[in-house]
C-alpha cells in the first residue's frame, strides 16, 4: 500500500466534541483524540483533531465521517422548501397519512386519545401539484404523460419558492418511465432545482411511504450538496488527497458522490457508528445480548444488539414521517453532558432536551451560564476540573456552582441536592428510553450488558444500569472516542433495492438472475467510485417475500448461486422456513410472491488491533493516582474515593466501587455496590454486586 494512504481516519462530530481515530493500516494499531467541536467549521475541527494525533494529512488515505447534517436539517425543519409532483387524485395522501391514529403518549393510548397531534403533511398542499397521467399494474400506461403539463406544474412550484422537487407517480415501481421523463425534463429545463424521483430513492410498493421518503430525500439534497462542497474544498486546500466517505444509516460507508443523490441514506449515519463499534466488541467478547449506550454532549443513543447483528428496521420514521430506507434501529433522546437543567412551570426539575452544545457549552467551560448535566457532575466531584479531556479543557467549578445556585433557589434546596437531582432526572430519562426497547418489546434487561461510551457514557453507565436493572456494564477501551472505531471497522457497503411485485410461480428465473446481476453491477459501481482498498466486492442477495394475499413481507436471504428453476424452489423453501421460524407455522401449499429484491454489496476493511494491557496480579494499587471527595448518595454524602489511571490498569485488576477511573477521553464513575474487573483486552467489566447474590 502506498505510503501516502497509510491511515484511515474516522471522525465523529458531536454537538460538543469531535472525536477522531486514525487506523494505521500497516500495523493495525489506532490512535485517537477528542477535541471541541467547531460549529460551522468542519474542516478546522477535522484538521485540528488529526494534528492532535500527529498524523500528517497527506498520509491519510481515507476520512470516514458520520454526518448529522441531514438529520439536524430535518428535525429543525431547516431543509429545502420542497414541492411535490404526483399522479392526479392522490397527493392528499400527505394529509391522510394512512388514516390510523398512532400519535399517543404510550404504545397503547393512541386508540383512545382524542388530543394527540396528527403531524402536519410533510409537503403542504399549496406546494403539491398533480399530473393527469396514469400507469397501472403491471406497468401498462393508461394515460400518457403530457410534458407541457409537467413543465407548467414544475414552473408553478418553483415560482412558489420550491428549490427541490419530489416526484412520485403511482406504480412507478413497475414502470418508471413517466417518473424518469419528468426528471429528465426538469433537469434539462430548470437550472438550480434539485429533483428526486421515487423509483430511484425508494422503489417500494405502497405509495404514501414512497411519496414521503422521496420528498424527504428531495428536501435534503441541497443541504447535502452544500455541505459536501464546503468540506471537500477545505480538505483539499489543506493538502488532503485521499477520499472522503460517509456513514449510512444501515452501518455501511459510502462515497459522498453517491449520497448527493440519496442524502436520506445518511439520516442515522452519526449514531449508527457506535452500534457498529458495539457489535464489533460483542463479536470479540462473544457476548450476544448488548445494549449500546452512547452518551455525548447532547443526546443519549441506545440500541439493542442480539446475536451479533446490527438491528435493522424498515419501519423507520422521523417525527412520524416514514423513511423507507434500511436503517439501524436506534433510540435517541435529548440527554447528554450539555443538557440544560431548568425548573418547569409546575415547579418540577427537568433536564434537556435543550443542550448548551459546544457553544456556549456547560457553565463550567467558562462562557455559558445555564446549568447542565456536566456542571452537576463536576460539582458532585465525579469529574475532575483539571483532568477533563486529558487536561485539555480546564473546568471552572465556581462557574458550575454559581450556575446551579439560581436553580437550587427555585427548587428550595442546596447546590449539592440540586446537582444530584439533575443527574437522577437525566438518568431516569435514559432509563425510560432503555425500557421502551427492552421491557416493552419483551426483553428482560437483566439478561443484557450495557456498553457505555461517548464522553458521558462511562460516567453514567453504572447509575443507568442500576436504574434499568441491568447487571453488567462494559466500558470499552477509549470509550470517549469509541464511535469512531465503528467508522473504521464498518464495511464499505451499499444496499440496493428494487421493486419486484410478482408471484414466484410466474417469475422467469433468467430475468430474476438478470435483475440481481444488474443490482450487483450497480452496487459494485457505487463502491468502486471511491474505493482505494483492494479486495473483491462481496454481494449478498435477499428478497422481501410473502404468501400471495398477505400484505407484510419477510426478508429471506438468497444464497442459491445462479438462479434457475431449481434455485427458485430453494428460495421458496427458504421463505417457508423463515415464515415458520417467525410465526411458528407455514402453509407450504400456498403460492408465494416477491415484493422487493435487495443486494448488499460490501468491501471488507482492514482489521483493527488493540494493544492488550499488561497482565496484573489483581491489585490495582499501582495505578491509583490519588483521591478526591465524590458525592455518593444522600446517606453517604461526599466521600473520599480512589482515583485510578486507566492506562496503568492491568488485566485482572479488581476495584470495588465507589471509585473513579480517569483516562484521556472519558471518566468512569463506579457507584457503590458495583465492582470493576479489567478483562484481558483491557475492557472494564463492571458488575453489580447485588446481582451476584
Amino acid at each position, binding site marked *: 500500500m502506498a505510503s501516502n494512504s497509510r491511515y484511515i481516519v474516522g471522525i465523529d462530530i458531536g454537538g460538543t466534541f469531535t472525536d477522531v481515530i486514525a487506523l494505521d493500516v500497516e500495523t493495525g494499531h489506532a490512535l485517537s483524540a477528542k477535541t471541541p467541536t467547531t460549529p460551522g467549521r468542519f474542516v478546522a475541527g477535522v484538521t485540528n483533531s488529526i494534528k492532535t494525533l500527529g498524523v500528517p494529512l497527506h498520509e491519510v488515505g481515507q476520512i470516514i465521517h458520520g454526518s448529522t447534517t441531514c438529520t439536524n436539517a430535518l428535525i429543525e425543519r431547516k431543509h429545502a422548501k420542497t414541492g411535490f409532483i404526483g399522479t392526479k387524485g392522490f397527493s392528499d395522501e400527505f394529509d*391522510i397519512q394512512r388514516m390510523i391514529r398512532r400519535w*399517543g403518549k404510550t*404504545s397503547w393510548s393512541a386508540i383512545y386519545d382524542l388530543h394527540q397531534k396528527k403531524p402536519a403533511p410533510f409537503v403542504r398542499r399549496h406546494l403539491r401539484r398533480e399530473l393527469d397521467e396514469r400507469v397501472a*399494474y403491471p406497468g401498462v400506461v393508461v394515460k400518457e404523460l403530457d410534458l407541457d403539463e409537467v413543465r407548467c406544474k414544475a414552473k408553478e412550484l418553483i415560482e412558489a419558492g420550491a428549490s427541490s422537487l419530489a416526484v412520485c407517480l403511482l406504480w412507478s415501481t413497475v414502470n418508471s418511465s413517466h417518473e424518469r421523463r419528468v426528471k429528465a425534463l426538469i433537469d434539462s429545463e430548470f437550472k438550480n432545482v434539485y429533483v428526486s424521483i421515487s423509483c430511484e430513492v425508494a422503489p417500494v410498493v405502497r405509495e404514501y411511504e414512497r411519496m414521503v421518503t422521496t420528498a424527504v430525500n428531495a428536501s435534503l439534497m441541497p443541504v447535502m450538496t452544500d455541505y459536501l462542497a464546503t468540506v471537500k474544498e477545505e480538505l483539499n486546500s489543506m493538502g488532503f488527497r485521499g477520499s472522503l466517505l460517509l456513514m449510512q444509516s444501515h452501518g455501511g460507508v459510502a462515497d459522498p458522490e453517491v449520497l448527493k443523490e440519496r442524502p436520506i441514506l445518511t439520516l442515522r449515519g452519526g449514531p449508527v457508528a457506535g452500534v457498529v463499534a458495539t457489535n464489533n466488541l460483542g463479536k470479540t467478547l462473544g457476548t450476544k445480548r448488548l445494549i449500546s449506550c452512547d452518551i455525548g454532549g447532547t443526546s443519549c443513543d441506545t440500541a439493542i444488539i442480539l446475536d451479533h447483528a446490527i438491528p435493522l428496521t424498515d419501519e423507520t420514521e422521523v417525527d412520524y414521517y416514514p423513511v423507507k430506507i434500511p436503517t439501524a434501529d436506534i433510540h435517541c433522546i435529548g440527554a447528554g453532558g450539555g443538557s440544560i437543567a431548568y425548573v418547569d412551570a409546575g415547579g418540577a426539575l427537568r433536564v434537556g432536551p435543550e443542550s448548551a452544545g459546544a457553544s456556549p457549552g456547560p457553565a463550567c467551560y467558562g462562557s455559558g451560564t445555564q446549568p447542565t448535566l456536566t456542571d452537576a457532575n463536576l460539582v458532585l466531584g465525579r469529574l475532575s476540573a483539571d483532568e477533563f479531556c486529558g487536561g485539555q479543557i480546564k473546568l471552572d467549578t465556581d462557574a458550575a456552582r454559581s450556575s446551579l445556585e439560581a436553580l437550587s433557589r427555585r427548587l428550595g434546596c442546596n447546590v449539592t441536592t440540586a446537582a444530584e437531582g439533575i443527574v437522577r432526572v437525566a438518568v431516569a430519562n435514559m432509563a425510560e428510553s432503555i425500557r421502551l426497547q427492552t421491557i416493552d418489546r419483551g426483553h428482560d434487561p437483566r439478561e443484557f450488558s450495557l456498553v457505555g461510551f461517548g464522553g458521558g457514557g462511562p460516567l453514567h453507565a453504572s447509575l443507568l444500569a442500576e436504574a434499568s436493572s441491568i447487571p453488567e456494564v462494559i466500558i470499552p477501551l477509549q470509550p470517549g472516542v469509541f464511535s469512531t472505531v465503528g467508522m473504521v471497522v464498518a464495511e464499505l457497503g451499499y444496499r440496493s433495492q428494487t421493486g419486484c411485485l410478482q408471484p414466484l410461480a410466474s417469475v422467469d428465473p433468467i430475468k430474476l438472475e438478470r435483475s440481481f446481476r444488474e443490482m450487483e453491477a450497480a452496487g459494485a459501481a457505487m463502491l468502486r467510485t471511491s474505493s482505494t482498498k483492494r479486495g473483491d466486492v462481496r454481494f449478498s442477495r435477499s428478497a422481501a417475500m410473502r404468501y400471495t394475499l*398477505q400484505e407484510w413481507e419477510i426478508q429471506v436471504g438468497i444464497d442459491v448461486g445462479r438462479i434457475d428453476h431449481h434455485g427458485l424452489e430453494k428460495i421458496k423453501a427458504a421463505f417457508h422456513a423463515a415464515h415458520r421460524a417467525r410465526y411458528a407455522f407455514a402453509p407450504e401449499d400456498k403460492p408465494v410472491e416477491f415484493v422487493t429484491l435487495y443486494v448488499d454489496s460490501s468491501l471488507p476493511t482492514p482489521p483493527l488491533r488493540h494493544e492488550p494491557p499488561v497482565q496484573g496480579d489483581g491489585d490495582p494499587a499501582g495505578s491509583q493516582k490519588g483521591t478526591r471527595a465524590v458525592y455518593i448518595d444522600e446517606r453517604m454524602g461526599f466521600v473520599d474515593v480512589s482515583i485510578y489511571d486507566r492506562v496503568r490498569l492491568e488485566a485482572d485488576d479488581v476495584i470495588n466501587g465507589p471509585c473513579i477511573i480517569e483516562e484521556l477521553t472519558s471518566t468512569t464513575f463506579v457507584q457503590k455496590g458495583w465492582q470493576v474487573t479489567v478483562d484481558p483486552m483491557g475492557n472494564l467489566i463492571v458488575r453489580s454486586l447485588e446481582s451476584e447474590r
Partner: protein
Amino acid sequence: MVTAPVSRWFAQASEDFLNLGAIPPDVPRVEVRRNALDPVTFAVLGGALFSICQEMDITLRNTSLSPIINIGKDFSCAIFTSDAQLVAQACNCPGHVGSMHYAVLSCISSFGFENLNEGDVYMLNDPYQGGTHLPDITLITPVFYKDELVMFAGNRAHHSDVGGSCPGSFPLSDSIFEEGIRIPPVKFYDRGSKVPSVISMLLANVRTPEEVEGDIEAQLAANRAGARGLVRLMDKYGRDVVLCAILEYMDHSERAFRNSLNIPDGSYTAEDWMDGDGKTEGARKIRANVVVKGSDVFVDFTGTEAQARGPINSIFPTTASMVVAALLALTDPTIMPNHGFYRPIHVKAPSGTLVNPTFPAPAVGFPDVCNRIVEVIMEALTPVIPDRVIAATSGTTTNCFFGGTNPTSGQPYVWYNINSQGGWGGRSDADGWHNVCFIEANGWDIPVETIEYRYPWRVLAYKLRDDDSGAGKFRGGKGNYLALTPIGHDVQFSVNGDRAVTLPYGLFGGKPGASGKCTIYHKDGRIERVAPKMLKADRLIVRQDDVLVIEAPSGGGYGNPLERNVDSVRDDVLDGIVSIESARHDYGVVFSDGGRVVDFIATAELRAQMFNAYETRSAELNSINRKPYTLDDDAGH
C-alpha cells in the same frame, strides 16, 4: 359448577346498572398466592404482558390474507384471566376489546370450565352468545401451565365474508339469519387436533373460502403466540408471580382511573340520532344519562329508541365496550386497559333497544351506533369538561362492500373497503384530524397500489373532500373522497354509512361538519344518489366503467369561527382547505389580491360586525347544536 350463559348479563343490564368489572360468581377461579412484588419485576411483567398481546397482533396482521385484517387491522388480540377478566390488549379496536371477555365467558358456560382441555380452541361469532357481529369470528384458546388452566388467549377478526344475503355479509337485514352463518361456541380444536367438520361447515357458507381459511390460520397462530408467551413468562418468573402481577395491575388501573376521572358529581344527559336503520329512514334516538358519583360513573341508556328492524343494533357487549372507550378517552388514555378500570363503570341498557337488542334482531351494522355512543357520552359531559371533549367526528364507518368476479382470473372476490373515513371534530386547542379511522376501530388505509394489485378496480381519486364545513375557532377535519371504477366487470355494491342527514355537530359556536354522500355516475350519464337520507344500501349494481364516488362526513368545528387566528385562516385558504368565500362568510376574514393577501382592515371591520350578529344568534346556534341537524337547517344559515 355450572356457569350461566352470557345472555344473563345482557338481561341484568336491562333491569339495573351492571358493574362492568363484576366477576361472575359462578366461574371457577384459580388460586393465586398474593405476595409482594419488587417494583422491577412488576414493571417488567406489565411490559411483558402488553408485548405478548403485541406479538399476537403482529402475528395475526402479518400472516393473514384479507386486507381488512392485514391492513385495516379490524381485529383485536387480548389475554384474560381464567375467570374471563381482561388482562391486557394490543393496540387494536376499542369496540372489540371491551367486549371480548364475554366470548371467553360464553365458552366457559357452553362447555363447562372443567371440560376445557389443553390444546382446545373455541370458535364463535354469534352476537347473542359472546360475539359482536357475524363477520367477527372469535377464537379463544385456554392456556395451560403445568396441566392447570391458568389463563385464556383470544382474538377476533373481521372476515371478508361470512355468507348471508350480500357479498361482504353486510346486508340490510331484518333478522340475524340473513347476515350469514351463525357460529355458537364450538370446539374448533379438540386436545390439539382440528375438528375438520367445523372448518368445512364454515367454508361451505362463505364467498371467500381461501381468505377465510387463511385468516383463521392466522388467528390460530396469534393465539398460539399468546399462549407460548404466557407459558414462557411463567417458566421464567413462576406462575404465582405472573398471576399476582396481573391482579396488581388491575388494582393499579382501577386506582389510576379513579384518581384521574376528575369530573364533578352530577347527572348529565344528551341525545343524538341515527339517520335510519337501513330498512326505513327517519331519526333513531340514542340517549345517555351519565351520573358521576365520586369516582364511579353510571351510564343509563333509558330513553334510547327501541331496537331497529334494520341492522344497526348494538348488542350489550359492544355498547359496554364503547362506554369504556369513551370514559378512558375522556379520562387518561395512558391508563393500561384491563378489567380493573371497568370496576368504577356501571351501565344500564334496557332490553329491546338499539343498545341492547334481543334475539333475533339484526346486528351487523352496530359500529355506527358504537361511534354515536361515544359521542353522546361526550355531548353529555360537554358542560363540565369542555376542554376534554371534542366536536362530533364523522360518527360512521362508511364501509363499502364489493362483490364480483375478476375478469382476468375468473375468481370471485369480495372487497371490504375501509378507506372512506371521515374527519374528526375540532378540539379545545387544535383542529380536528382530516380523514382518520372511526373511533370504534383503528386501522391503516389500504394503499391504492394494494387495491389495484388485488382487485379489478381502478382508483381515480383518493383525497380530502372539497367542502367548507366544520368552521370553528378550531375547525373540523375533512372527510375522505374516493372515486373508483370497476374494470371489465359488473359489481354488487353495498354501503353502510350514516350522518347523511343528521350532521356531525359543532361545539361552542363551531359549525357542523358535512354529511356523508355516495353517488354512482353511470356510464350513460345518469347520476344516482345512493340512499341520500340514510346512506345505507345493499346489492346495488355498479357496471363496468361506471364511476362510484363515496364522500365520508367531515367533523364539526369547536368554538366561534370568528375567533380563529387569521394566520390559520390564511394558511387554510392557501392550502385550499377553506375557500375564500368561506373565509369571509364563516371566519370574517377578507382577502385581496386574488386570495393571496389578507386585508386586515376589512377583516377587523367584518369580524366586529359579524360578532354582534353572532352574539344575538348564539343562543339559537347552541340550541341547534343540541338538536338533530338536518340538511334543511344547514341551508337556512
